[in-house]
């Protein structure tokens, strides 16, 4: 599903450049539940952004669903994101003036689905995350956990191949963290590839494979107890 070879990425800082990713090799198969761990500055967010087509890499190759990602323009990247990827962010990134239902339906609008149909689909997904009754509430009327569940519903609504979650529990307390992680596990159980970035051990342990990053390199890549239990 995701195949990365010798991936490099630098950011220019004044005259110098900061070498963030120094040759990453990573292969994630369909249906995997992977977490990337690392301290801040280890390059994990950069990796997710490149995988999510929100940023471009400098060197190396990246195949998403068998397609070589190279020379992407914004239009092509937008189409691929809409088709293959779902995003869950630490700060939720819901549009504040849209209701929960409208937020969930937005990716379907960019897919070109008609309004009636996309509102029906969005409502199904809100029901799935247990927020059907909150469909017509604005984000600021929801708790953090509810917001993140709305964001997850939004990430799922287009039936993407991969769900990318950047510190999905970073802004949540432990109870809501568990409910969000349960939700991600359910999604994975249904066969969807889930790719989580976190710095919390408890969160990483609930995934099936942990990849640890340090200074732009993978230092370990191992399966967890959770994967062996299945």
């Amino acid at each position: 599903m995701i195949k990365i070879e010798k991936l490099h990425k630098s950011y220019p800082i004044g005259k110098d450049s900061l070498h963030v990713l120094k040759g990453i090799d990573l292969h994630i198969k369909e249906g995997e539940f992977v977490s990337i761990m690392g301290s801040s500055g280890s390059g994990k967010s950069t990796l997710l952004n490149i995988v999510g087509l929100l940023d471009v890499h400098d060197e190396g190759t990246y195949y998403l669903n068998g397609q070589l990602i190279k020379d992407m323009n914004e239009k092509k990247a937008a189409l691929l994101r809409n088709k293959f990827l779902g995003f869950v962010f630490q700060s939720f990134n819901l549009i504040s003036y849209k209701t929960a239902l409208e937020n969930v339906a937005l990716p379907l609008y960019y897919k070109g689905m008609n309004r009636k149909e996309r509102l029906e689909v969005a409502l199904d997904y809100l029901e799935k995350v247990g927020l059907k009754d909150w469909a017509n509430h604005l984000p600021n009327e929801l708790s953090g956990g509810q917001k993140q569940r709305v964001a997850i519903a939004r990430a799922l609504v287009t039936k993407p191949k991969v769900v990318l979650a950047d510190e999905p529990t970073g802004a949540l307390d432990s109870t809501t963290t568990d409910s969000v992680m349960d939700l991600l596990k359910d999604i994975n159980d249904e066969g969807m590839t889930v790719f989580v970035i976190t710095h919390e051990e408890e969160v990483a342990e609930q995934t099936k494979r942990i990849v640890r990053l340090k200074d732009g390199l993978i230092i370990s890549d191992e399966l967890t107890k959770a994967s062996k239990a299945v």
Partner: protein
Amino acid sequence: MFDLDRWREIFQSINKNRLRSVMSGFTVAFAILLFTLLFGIVSGLSNSFKSAFADDAQNAMFVRVWKTSKPYKGLQTGRRVQLKNSDYNYVTEEYASKIEYQSSRIYKNFSIKYKSEASSYTVMAVNPDHQFLEKTIINEGRYLNERDLREASKVIVIGRLIKKDLFGERPALGKRVNMNGSSFLIIGIFSDDGGDNEERKAFIPLSTAQRMYGNNDYISQIALGYNPDLSLDAAVAFGNQLERDLRNKLNIHPDDQSALSVRNMAEANKGVGQFMGILYAIVILIGSGTLIAGIIGISNIMIFVIKERTKEFGIRKALGAKPSSIVAMVVQESILITALAGYFGLSLGTYILSLIGNSLEEKYFIKDPSVSPGIVIGATIVLILSGLIAGYLPAKKAANIKPIVALRAD
């Protein structure tokens, strides 16, 4: 191009962000309002000037004489100058190609009497062409004709208000009135846009007046209508030439303004034309300045709005929005706001102008102020274009920011 879903997105965005929509709309509405009022007021002034000259034909010229104020060729100051038929004939023959209408005028004040009703009126003895020079409008019957002049008939054309004074609602055409001891047949009743005074006048044939009152060939004025094919400059030159020529013929000092003058509408028209031209130029300058200020206002607000929405655009792009769809959304929103606000300003402006109506005519010479459809359409096009530019440039920039950068924005 019409995409109901996109419009729904736009309406939602406008509706949920009312303050900023109203703010950007306000500058435009205000600019257009001022623009409309300015243009309306100048058009009102222009209307006033036009109606001030509505009394007489636009191409009229009047040769008038008084007493000399300068000695010339041995003739003393204070000599009374008298125009005669021969002068009239000389002018009309000498300048035939430059003249459209021609008439002599004799002014008299007579009492006109019908049965027990009588009153004193200005009576002018004229030639048939005078109808066009004075812009006399015949309501009933006819004006004087060549035959009346040839036969020195005792016929009279009376103003609408004379008829009202003497006859009230009763018919006057074909009745006879007594004027200065003679009986005259009413052959026509007229009205005139020049006001009430003009409609309390009566016209009789020139020959009749000369024969009955004095038995001479004196005339008070020569009224001409210059050939409308002449340019304003040529018409002014014609008037000056005529003035020099007649002073020479009547032995008047060339600079003696108070002995003989030619009042030439061409000069007035030229002056008014220049004046209105300058006024319009000033208004266009100020008006476009206001419009430009308005446009800059929207641009500023749009830049601010787009900066504020950068994160939203980042989210939309992460969810699969193409840059073009974001640009289109912002531009359409911007055009919608400017067009609606502009239309509001325009409507308010025309409504205020219609309220003003003719109420400022007396004091401020503003008559029936209004804006022409051409100006309205032009202003609307400018607005839509400015909305397009104001929205497009910053939106294009925002849409091309990498989503990762946009998402980081606050």
